[in-house]
Protein backbone atom coordinates (compact mmCIF):
# COMPACT_ATOMS: atom_id res chain seq x y z
CA UNK A 1 0.00 0.00 0.00
CA UNK A 2 1.56 3.34 -0.98
CA UNK A 3 1.50 6.20 1.49
CA UNK A 4 -1.29 8.20 -0.15
CA UNK A 5 -3.57 5.13 -0.14
CA UNK A 6 -2.50 4.46 3.43
CA UNK A 7 -3.28 8.02 4.55
CA UNK A 8 -6.71 7.85 2.96
CA UNK A 9 -7.34 4.52 4.71
CA UNK A 10 -6.18 6.03 8.03
CA UNK A 11 -8.44 9.03 7.55
CA UNK A 12 -11.38 6.66 7.23
CA UNK A 13 -10.48 4.17 9.95
CA UNK A 14 -7.32 4.58 12.05
CA UNK A 15 -7.57 1.20 13.78
CA UNK A 16 -8.44 -0.62 10.58
CA UNK A 17 -5.48 0.82 8.65
CA UNK A 18 -2.90 0.93 11.42
CA UNK A 19 -1.63 -2.59 10.75
CA UNK A 20 -0.74 -1.52 7.20
CA UNK A 21 1.06 1.52 8.62
CA UNK A 22 3.10 -0.66 10.98
CA UNK A 23 4.02 -3.11 8.24
CA UNK A 24 4.83 -0.33 5.81
CA UNK A 25 7.05 1.71 8.13
CA UNK A 26 8.47 -0.64 10.77
CA UNK A 27 11.73 -1.28 8.91
CA UNK A 28 12.59 2.39 8.46
CA UNK A 29 11.52 3.44 11.96
CA UNK A 30 13.51 0.57 13.46
CA UNK A 31 16.50 1.51 11.31
CA UNK A 32 16.36 5.13 12.46
CA UNK A 33 16.03 4.06 16.11
CA UNK A 34 18.83 1.51 15.82
CA UNK A 35 21.25 3.92 14.16
CA UNK A 36 20.38 6.63 16.68
CA UNK A 37 20.62 4.47 19.78
CA UNK A 38 23.06 1.73 18.71
CA UNK A 39 21.23 -0.85 20.83
CA UNK A 40 18.78 -3.33 19.26
CA UNK A 41 16.67 -3.78 22.40
CA UNK A 42 16.38 -0.01 22.92
CA UNK A 43 15.62 0.44 19.23
CA UNK A 44 12.84 -2.11 19.36
CA UNK A 45 11.31 -0.46 22.40
CA UNK A 46 11.57 3.02 20.90
CA UNK A 47 10.02 1.84 17.62
CA UNK A 48 7.05 0.38 19.48
CA UNK A 49 6.78 3.53 21.54
CA UNK A 50 6.83 5.64 18.37
CA UNK A 51 3.99 3.62 16.82
CA UNK A 52 2.00 3.96 20.04
CA UNK A 53 2.49 7.75 19.96
CA UNK A 54 1.48 7.85 16.31
CA UNK A 55 -1.62 5.79 17.03
CA UNK A 56 -2.63 8.07 19.91
CA UNK A 57 -2.21 11.16 17.75
CA UNK A 58 -4.09 9.73 14.77
CA UNK A 59 -6.97 8.62 17.00
CA UNK A 60 -7.30 12.16 18.31
CA UNK A 61 -7.27 13.81 14.87
CA UNK A 62 -10.12 14.34 12.46
CA UNK A 63 -9.98 12.96 8.93
CA UNK A 64 -8.92 16.24 7.29
CA UNK A 65 -5.94 16.64 9.58
CA UNK A 66 -4.86 13.06 8.80
CA UNK A 67 -5.24 13.69 5.05
CA UNK A 68 -2.95 16.74 5.37
CA UNK A 69 -0.23 14.64 7.00
CA UNK A 70 3.25 14.18 5.51
CA UNK A 71 3.46 10.63 6.81
CA UNK A 72 7.13 9.74 6.28
CA UNK A 73 8.70 12.80 7.94
CA UNK A 74 6.04 12.84 10.65
CA UNK A 75 6.80 9.25 11.70
CA UNK A 76 10.54 9.94 11.51
CA UNK A 77 10.14 12.91 13.84
CA UNK A 78 8.18 10.78 16.30
CA UNK A 79 10.85 8.08 16.45
CA UNK A 80 13.62 10.69 16.84
CA UNK A 81 11.71 12.29 19.72
CA UNK A 82 10.93 8.93 21.30
CA UNK A 83 14.62 8.03 21.04
CA UNK A 84 15.75 11.27 22.67
CA UNK A 85 14.52 10.09 26.07
CA UNK A 86 16.12 6.70 25.66
CA UNK A 87 19.66 7.74 24.82
CA UNK A 88 21.08 6.90 28.20
CA UNK A 89 22.99 3.65 28.00
CA UNK A 90 26.64 4.15 27.29
CA UNK A 91 27.39 3.46 23.65
CA UNK A 92 29.55 0.42 22.98
CA UNK A 93 32.94 1.81 22.17
CA UNK A 94 34.79 -1.45 21.68
CA UNK A 95 36.68 -1.47 18.40
CA UNK A 96 35.00 -3.38 15.58
CA UNK A 97 36.25 -6.93 15.07
CA UNK A 98 39.14 -7.14 12.66
CA UNK A 99 38.59 -8.95 9.38
CA UNK A 100 42.25 -10.03 9.31
CA UNK A 101 41.83 -13.58 10.66
CA UNK A 102 38.86 -14.09 8.36
CA UNK A 103 40.88 -13.12 5.30
CA UNK A 104 43.83 -15.20 6.46
CA UNK A 105 41.61 -18.27 6.76
CA UNK A 106 40.85 -18.12 3.07
CA UNK A 107 37.72 -15.98 2.97
CA UNK A 108 37.25 -14.69 -0.55
CA UNK A 109 35.66 -11.25 -0.59
CA UNK A 110 35.03 -11.63 -4.31
CA UNK A 111 32.24 -14.12 -3.75
CA UNK A 112 29.03 -12.13 -3.60
CA UNK A 113 26.76 -14.87 -2.33
CA UNK A 114 25.81 -14.12 1.27
CA UNK A 115 28.05 -16.64 3.00
CA UNK A 116 28.23 -16.57 6.78
CA UNK A 117 31.44 -14.61 6.35
CA UNK A 118 29.86 -11.87 4.25
CA UNK A 119 27.02 -11.66 6.74
CA UNK A 120 29.60 -11.30 9.48
CA UNK A 121 31.40 -8.68 7.45
CA UNK A 122 28.24 -6.67 6.99
CA UNK A 123 27.66 -6.83 10.70
CA UNK A 124 31.16 -5.60 11.38
CA UNK A 125 30.65 -2.82 8.85
CA UNK A 126 27.38 -1.79 10.48
CA UNK A 127 29.02 -1.88 13.91
CA UNK A 128 31.82 0.36 12.64
CA UNK A 129 29.31 2.87 11.30
CA UNK A 130 27.26 2.69 14.47
CA UNK A 131 30.36 3.64 16.43
CA UNK A 132 31.12 6.48 14.06
CA UNK A 133 27.55 7.80 14.18
CA UNK A 134 27.69 7.64 17.96
CA UNK A 135 30.64 10.03 17.76
CA UNK A 136 28.42 12.74 16.26
CA UNK A 137 26.52 15.21 18.45
CA UNK A 138 22.94 13.87 18.88
CA UNK A 139 21.21 16.59 16.87
CA UNK A 140 23.64 16.19 13.98
CA UNK A 141 23.45 12.41 14.16
CA UNK A 142 19.66 12.50 13.81
CA UNK A 143 19.68 14.66 10.68
CA UNK A 144 22.48 12.62 9.06
CA UNK A 145 20.46 9.44 9.68
CA UNK A 146 17.23 10.97 8.40
CA UNK A 147 18.93 12.35 5.28
CA UNK A 148 21.26 9.54 4.31
CA UNK A 149 20.00 6.36 5.99
CA UNK A 150 16.26 7.03 5.75
CA UNK A 151 16.48 9.17 2.60
CA UNK A 152 14.25 12.08 3.61
CA UNK A 153 14.73 15.34 1.73
CA UNK A 154 16.12 18.45 3.46
CA UNK A 155 12.67 20.03 3.25
CA UNK A 156 11.03 16.99 4.86
CA UNK A 157 13.59 16.92 7.67
CA UNK A 158 13.21 20.65 8.27
CA UNK A 159 9.43 20.26 8.53
CA UNK A 160 9.66 17.14 10.67
CA UNK A 161 12.13 18.53 13.19
CA UNK A 162 10.92 22.14 13.06
CA UNK A 163 14.34 23.49 12.12
CA UNK A 164 15.13 25.87 9.26
CA UNK A 165 16.14 24.03 6.10
CA UNK A 166 19.45 25.91 6.02
CA UNK A 167 20.26 24.66 9.51
CA UNK A 168 19.45 21.09 8.51
CA UNK A 169 21.70 21.31 5.45
CA UNK A 170 24.52 22.77 7.52
CA UNK A 171 24.12 20.04 10.15
CA UNK A 172 24.14 17.25 7.56
CA UNK A 173 27.20 18.79 5.93
CA UNK A 174 28.94 19.10 9.28
CA UNK A 175 28.02 15.50 10.12
CA UNK A 176 29.46 14.13 6.89
CA UNK A 177 32.62 16.18 7.37
CA UNK A 178 33.01 14.75 10.87
CA UNK A 179 32.46 11.19 9.60
CA UNK A 180 35.03 11.76 6.86
CA UNK A 181 37.49 13.04 9.42
CA UNK A 182 36.86 9.99 11.60
CA UNK A 183 37.55 7.64 8.70
CA UNK A 184 40.75 9.49 7.85
CA UNK A 185 41.83 9.28 11.49
CA UNK A 186 41.11 5.55 11.52
CA UNK A 187 43.25 5.08 8.42
CA UNK A 188 46.09 7.12 9.84
CA UNK A 189 45.87 4.95 12.92
CA UNK A 190 45.96 1.77 10.81
CA UNK A 191 49.01 3.05 8.95
CA UNK A 192 50.76 3.87 12.19
CA UNK A 193 50.05 0.35 13.50
CA UNK A 194 51.37 -1.24 10.31
CA UNK A 195 54.55 0.75 10.22
CA UNK A 196 55.22 0.45 13.92
Amino acid sequence: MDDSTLIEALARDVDGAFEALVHGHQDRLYTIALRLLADPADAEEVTQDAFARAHRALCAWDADRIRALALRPWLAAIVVNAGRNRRRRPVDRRPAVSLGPLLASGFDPGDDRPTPETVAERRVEAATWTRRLAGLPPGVRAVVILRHVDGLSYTEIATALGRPEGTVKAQVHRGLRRLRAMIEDERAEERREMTA
Partner: protein
Amino acid sequence: MTGSTGSTGSTAPAVPDDIEAALAALATSAPGGLAVATLAALGLADLYATMPSPLGDVLVTWNGRGVSAVSLAENEEPAALEARHFAATGRRATRATGGLPAVLARAIARRMSGDRRVRIALDLRGRGDFERQVWLKALEIPSGEVRPYGWIAAEIGRPRAVRAVGSALGHNPVPLIVPCHRVVRGDGTIGQYSLGGPANKRAILAAEGVDPDALEAMARAGVRLIGSDSTRIVCHPTCRNARRIRADHRVPFRSITAASDAGYRPCRVCRPASSLVGTGAAA
Protein backbone atom coordinates in the same frame (compact mmCIF):
# COMPACT_ATOMS: atom_id res chain seq x y z
CA MET B 1 36.65 -0.72 5.36
CA THR B 2 39.94 -2.13 4.30
CA GLY B 3 42.25 0.84 4.31
CA SER B 4 44.90 1.61 1.74
CA THR B 5 48.12 0.11 2.94
CA GLY B 6 50.62 1.69 0.61
CA SER B 7 51.85 5.23 0.76
CA THR B 8 52.24 6.88 4.10
CA GLY B 9 52.65 10.26 2.80
CA SER B 10 51.88 13.46 1.21
CA THR B 11 49.38 12.39 -1.47
CA ALA B 12 46.39 13.16 0.78
CA PRO B 13 43.58 10.66 0.29
CA ALA B 14 40.66 12.98 -0.41
CA VAL B 15 37.33 11.32 0.29
CA PRO B 16 38.24 7.73 1.05
CA ASP B 17 34.86 6.12 0.51
CA ASP B 18 31.40 6.93 -0.62
CA ILE B 19 30.08 7.81 2.82
CA GLU B 20 26.58 8.45 1.55
CA ALA B 21 26.35 4.99 -0.01
CA ALA B 22 27.70 3.41 3.16
CA LEU B 23 25.08 5.23 5.22
CA ALA B 24 22.27 4.21 2.86
CA ALA B 25 23.41 0.59 3.25
CA LEU B 26 22.70 0.83 6.99
CA ALA B 27 18.96 0.39 6.33
CA THR B 28 17.88 -2.82 8.00
CA SER B 29 14.78 -4.88 8.74
CA ALA B 30 12.78 -4.71 11.93
CA PRO B 31 12.96 -7.84 14.13
CA GLY B 32 10.40 -10.50 13.25
CA GLY B 33 7.97 -10.07 16.13
CA LEU B 34 7.98 -6.28 16.26
CA ALA B 35 4.84 -5.63 14.20
CA VAL B 36 2.77 -8.19 16.10
CA ALA B 37 4.04 -6.95 19.48
CA THR B 38 3.32 -3.35 18.49
CA LEU B 39 -0.20 -4.09 17.28
CA ALA B 40 -0.95 -6.29 20.28
CA ALA B 41 0.22 -3.60 22.70
CA LEU B 42 -2.24 -1.21 21.05
CA GLY B 43 -5.08 -3.73 21.19
CA LEU B 44 -5.18 -4.00 17.39
CA ALA B 45 -4.08 -7.64 17.35
CA ASP B 46 -4.01 -10.41 19.93
CA LEU B 47 -1.52 -12.95 21.22
CA TYR B 48 -2.35 -16.36 22.63
CA ALA B 49 -0.63 -18.96 24.76
CA THR B 50 -1.61 -21.97 26.83
CA MET B 51 -1.73 -22.24 30.58
CA PRO B 52 -2.93 -24.96 32.94
CA SER B 53 -6.42 -24.83 34.45
CA PRO B 54 -8.58 -27.20 36.51
CA LEU B 55 -10.01 -28.36 33.15
CA GLY B 56 -6.62 -29.04 31.58
CA ASP B 57 -4.70 -26.65 29.36
CA VAL B 58 -6.58 -23.58 28.21
CA LEU B 59 -5.66 -21.05 25.55
CA VAL B 60 -5.59 -17.50 26.83
CA THR B 61 -5.81 -14.73 24.23
CA TRP B 62 -4.89 -11.19 25.19
CA ASN B 63 -3.68 -7.79 24.01
CA GLY B 64 -2.57 -4.52 25.60
CA ARG B 65 -6.10 -3.79 26.76
CA GLY B 66 -6.69 -7.07 28.54
CA VAL B 67 -7.64 -10.71 28.18
CA SER B 68 -9.98 -11.18 25.25
CA ALA B 69 -10.66 -14.92 25.20
CA VAL B 70 -10.23 -18.19 27.06
CA SER B 71 -10.88 -21.52 25.37
CA LEU B 72 -9.99 -25.18 25.78
CA ALA B 73 -6.61 -25.95 24.25
CA GLU B 74 -7.54 -29.43 23.10
CA ASN B 75 -8.52 -30.41 19.58
CA GLU B 76 -8.22 -27.10 17.85
CA GLU B 77 -5.75 -26.35 15.10
CA PRO B 78 -4.06 -22.94 15.45
CA ALA B 79 -5.50 -21.89 12.09
CA ALA B 80 -9.03 -22.74 13.25
CA LEU B 81 -8.56 -20.87 16.51
CA GLU B 82 -7.17 -17.84 14.71
CA ALA B 83 -10.04 -17.84 12.21
CA ARG B 84 -12.59 -18.16 15.01
CA HIS B 85 -10.95 -15.30 16.91
CA PHE B 86 -10.90 -13.11 13.83
CA ALA B 87 -14.57 -13.81 13.15
CA ALA B 88 -15.47 -12.92 16.74
CA THR B 89 -13.30 -9.82 17.20
CA GLY B 90 -11.99 -8.69 13.80
CA ARG B 91 -8.45 -9.05 15.15
CA ARG B 92 -5.65 -11.39 14.17
CA ALA B 93 -4.38 -13.73 16.86
CA THR B 94 -0.78 -14.93 16.87
CA ARG B 95 0.78 -17.53 19.13
CA ALA B 96 3.06 -15.76 21.60
CA THR B 97 6.52 -17.26 21.31
CA GLY B 98 7.37 -16.33 24.89
CA GLY B 99 4.14 -17.73 26.37
CA LEU B 100 1.89 -15.79 28.68
CA PRO B 101 3.45 -12.79 30.48
CA ALA B 102 4.29 -14.02 33.97
CA VAL B 103 2.23 -11.33 35.71
CA LEU B 104 -0.85 -12.20 33.69
CA ALA B 105 -0.40 -15.96 34.16
CA ARG B 106 -0.09 -15.48 37.93
CA ALA B 107 -3.16 -13.27 38.07
CA ILE B 108 -5.29 -15.74 36.10
CA ALA B 109 -4.06 -18.66 38.21
CA ARG B 110 -5.03 -16.76 41.36
CA ARG B 111 -8.44 -15.90 39.93
CA MET B 112 -9.03 -19.54 39.00
CA SER B 113 -8.08 -20.60 42.50
CA GLY B 114 -10.88 -18.42 43.83
CA ASP B 115 -9.19 -15.09 44.59
CA ARG B 116 -11.71 -12.51 43.41
CA ARG B 117 -9.61 -9.52 44.48
CA VAL B 118 -6.92 -10.02 41.85
CA ARG B 119 -7.45 -7.53 39.05
CA ILE B 120 -7.41 -8.83 35.49
CA ALA B 121 -8.06 -6.35 32.70
CA LEU B 122 -10.55 -7.69 30.16
CA ASP B 123 -10.90 -6.59 26.56
CA LEU B 124 -14.62 -6.85 25.95
CA ARG B 125 -14.84 -4.39 23.06
CA GLY B 126 -17.69 -5.03 20.69
CA ARG B 127 -19.79 -6.71 23.36
CA GLY B 128 -23.14 -5.30 24.41
CA ASP B 129 -23.82 -3.47 27.67
CA PHE B 130 -26.24 -6.16 28.77
CA GLU B 131 -23.66 -8.92 28.29
CA ARG B 132 -21.02 -6.93 30.17
CA GLN B 133 -23.44 -6.36 33.06
CA VAL B 134 -24.16 -10.09 33.23
CA TRP B 135 -20.46 -11.00 33.21
CA LEU B 136 -19.53 -8.39 35.81
CA LYS B 137 -22.30 -9.65 38.05
CA ALA B 138 -21.09 -13.26 37.67
CA LEU B 139 -17.71 -12.03 38.94
CA GLU B 140 -19.34 -11.28 42.29
CA ILE B 141 -20.16 -14.94 42.97
CA PRO B 142 -17.49 -16.37 45.26
CA SER B 143 -15.68 -19.62 44.58
CA GLY B 144 -17.51 -22.57 46.12
CA GLU B 145 -20.94 -20.95 45.63
CA VAL B 146 -23.54 -20.88 42.87
CA ARG B 147 -26.49 -18.61 42.00
CA PRO B 148 -29.42 -19.10 39.65
CA TYR B 149 -29.67 -17.26 36.31
CA GLY B 150 -32.65 -15.38 37.71
CA TRP B 151 -30.47 -13.95 40.48
CA ILE B 152 -28.24 -12.24 37.92
CA ALA B 153 -31.26 -11.02 35.96
CA ALA B 154 -32.78 -9.46 39.07
CA GLU B 155 -29.49 -8.06 40.37
CA ILE B 156 -28.83 -6.15 37.15
CA GLY B 157 -32.35 -4.78 37.15
CA ARG B 158 -33.69 -6.96 34.32
CA PRO B 159 -35.71 -9.55 36.27
CA ARG B 160 -37.52 -10.79 33.19
CA ALA B 161 -34.39 -11.29 31.11
CA VAL B 162 -33.53 -14.69 32.59
CA ARG B 163 -33.21 -16.38 29.22
CA ALA B 164 -31.03 -13.54 27.90
CA VAL B 165 -28.79 -13.93 30.97
CA GLY B 166 -28.35 -17.60 30.10
CA SER B 167 -27.49 -16.67 26.54
CA ALA B 168 -25.00 -13.97 27.64
CA LEU B 169 -23.27 -16.46 29.93
CA GLY B 170 -23.12 -18.92 27.05
CA HIS B 171 -21.28 -16.25 25.06
CA ASN B 172 -18.86 -15.38 27.85
CA PRO B 173 -15.54 -15.03 25.97
CA VAL B 174 -13.45 -15.37 29.13
CA PRO B 175 -14.79 -18.39 31.07
CA LEU B 176 -12.89 -19.29 34.25
CA ILE B 177 -11.82 -15.64 34.55
CA VAL B 178 -15.47 -14.58 34.54
CA PRO B 179 -16.89 -17.57 36.46
CA CYS B 180 -20.04 -18.27 34.45
CA HIS B 181 -19.80 -21.84 35.74
CA ARG B 182 -21.08 -20.54 39.09
CA VAL B 183 -24.46 -19.71 37.58
CA VAL B 184 -26.96 -22.59 37.49
CA ARG B 185 -30.53 -23.13 36.38
CA GLY B 186 -33.35 -21.80 38.50
CA ASP B 187 -34.74 -25.32 38.90
CA GLY B 188 -31.54 -26.30 40.67
CA THR B 189 -29.97 -28.34 37.87
CA ILE B 190 -26.43 -27.48 36.86
CA GLY B 191 -27.21 -26.38 33.31
CA GLN B 192 -25.04 -25.88 30.24
CA TYR B 193 -21.44 -24.68 30.05
CA SER B 194 -19.68 -23.04 27.15
CA LEU B 195 -16.25 -24.42 28.04
CA GLY B 196 -16.74 -28.05 27.10
CA GLY B 197 -20.27 -28.80 28.32
CA PRO B 198 -22.01 -29.71 31.61
CA ALA B 199 -19.45 -32.38 32.61
CA ASN B 200 -16.77 -29.68 32.75
CA LYS B 201 -19.10 -27.40 34.69
CA ARG B 202 -19.63 -30.13 37.28
CA ALA B 203 -15.90 -30.83 37.41
CA ILE B 204 -14.90 -27.25 38.04
CA LEU B 205 -17.67 -26.67 40.58
CA ALA B 206 -16.54 -29.83 42.40
CA ALA B 207 -12.96 -28.54 42.30
CA GLU B 208 -14.21 -25.36 43.98
CA GLY B 209 -15.92 -27.35 46.74
CA VAL B 210 -19.51 -27.43 45.46
CA ASP B 211 -21.14 -30.88 45.37
CA PRO B 212 -23.18 -30.77 42.15
CA ASP B 213 -24.96 -34.05 42.90
CA ALA B 214 -26.06 -32.91 46.35
CA LEU B 215 -27.18 -29.60 44.88
CA GLU B 216 -29.30 -31.34 42.27
CA ALA B 217 -30.71 -33.82 44.79
CA MET B 218 -31.77 -30.92 46.99
CA ALA B 219 -33.36 -29.22 43.98
CA ARG B 220 -35.24 -32.41 43.08
CA ALA B 221 -36.64 -32.42 46.59
CA GLY B 222 -37.95 -28.93 45.92
CA VAL B 223 -35.46 -27.14 48.15
CA ARG B 224 -34.23 -23.78 46.77
CA LEU B 225 -33.24 -21.95 49.96
CA ILE B 226 -31.94 -22.79 53.42
CA GLY B 227 -32.85 -20.81 56.52
CA SER B 228 -31.58 -20.80 60.08
CA ASP B 229 -34.21 -21.06 62.78
CA SER B 230 -31.90 -19.29 65.21
CA THR B 231 -31.14 -16.21 63.08
CA ARG B 232 -34.33 -16.33 60.97
CA ILE B 233 -32.21 -15.56 57.92
CA VAL B 234 -32.65 -17.41 54.62
CA CYS B 235 -29.86 -18.02 52.05
CA HIS B 236 -28.99 -19.71 48.80
CA PRO B 237 -27.85 -23.24 49.77
CA THR B 238 -24.20 -22.61 48.81
CA CYS B 239 -23.93 -19.16 50.45
CA ARG B 240 -21.13 -19.09 52.99
CA ASN B 241 -23.69 -18.11 55.64
CA ALA B 242 -25.93 -21.08 54.77
CA ARG B 243 -23.02 -23.48 55.06
CA ARG B 244 -22.39 -22.30 58.61
CA ILE B 245 -25.90 -23.25 59.80
CA ARG B 246 -25.75 -26.30 62.05
CA ALA B 247 -27.73 -29.33 60.83
CA ASP B 248 -30.27 -29.12 63.61
CA HIS B 249 -31.01 -25.47 62.75
CA ARG B 250 -31.36 -25.85 58.97
CA VAL B 251 -34.82 -25.12 57.58
CA PRO B 252 -35.44 -25.81 53.89
CA PHE B 253 -37.69 -23.55 51.81
CA ARG B 254 -39.21 -23.87 48.34
CA SER B 255 -39.31 -20.14 47.71
CA ILE B 256 -38.54 -16.75 49.18
CA THR B 257 -42.28 -16.21 49.61
CA ALA B 258 -42.53 -19.33 51.76
CA ALA B 259 -39.53 -18.21 53.81
CA SER B 260 -40.89 -14.71 54.16
CA ASP B 261 -44.29 -16.04 55.25
CA ALA B 262 -42.47 -18.05 57.93
CA GLY B 263 -40.89 -14.84 59.23
CA TYR B 264 -37.41 -15.19 57.66
CA ARG B 265 -35.51 -12.32 56.06
CA PRO B 266 -33.17 -12.70 53.07
CA CYS B 267 -29.42 -12.94 53.69
CA ARG B 268 -27.63 -9.66 52.91
CA VAL B 269 -24.68 -11.49 51.38
CA CYS B 270 -26.40 -13.75 48.82
CA ARG B 271 -29.59 -11.67 48.49
CA PRO B 272 -31.96 -14.54 47.65
CA ALA B 273 -35.01 -12.31 47.30
CA SER B 274 -34.15 -11.59 43.74
CA SER B 275 -33.38 -15.10 42.69
CA LEU B 276 -36.70 -16.74 42.26
CA VAL B 277 -38.08 -14.94 39.25
CA GLY B 278 -38.38 -17.35 36.36
CA THR B 279 -36.70 -20.70 36.18
CA GLY B 280 -33.59 -19.96 34.17
CA ALA B 281 -32.46 -20.90 30.72
CA ALA B 282 -29.62 -23.01 29.48
CA ALA B 283 -26.33 -21.17 29.00
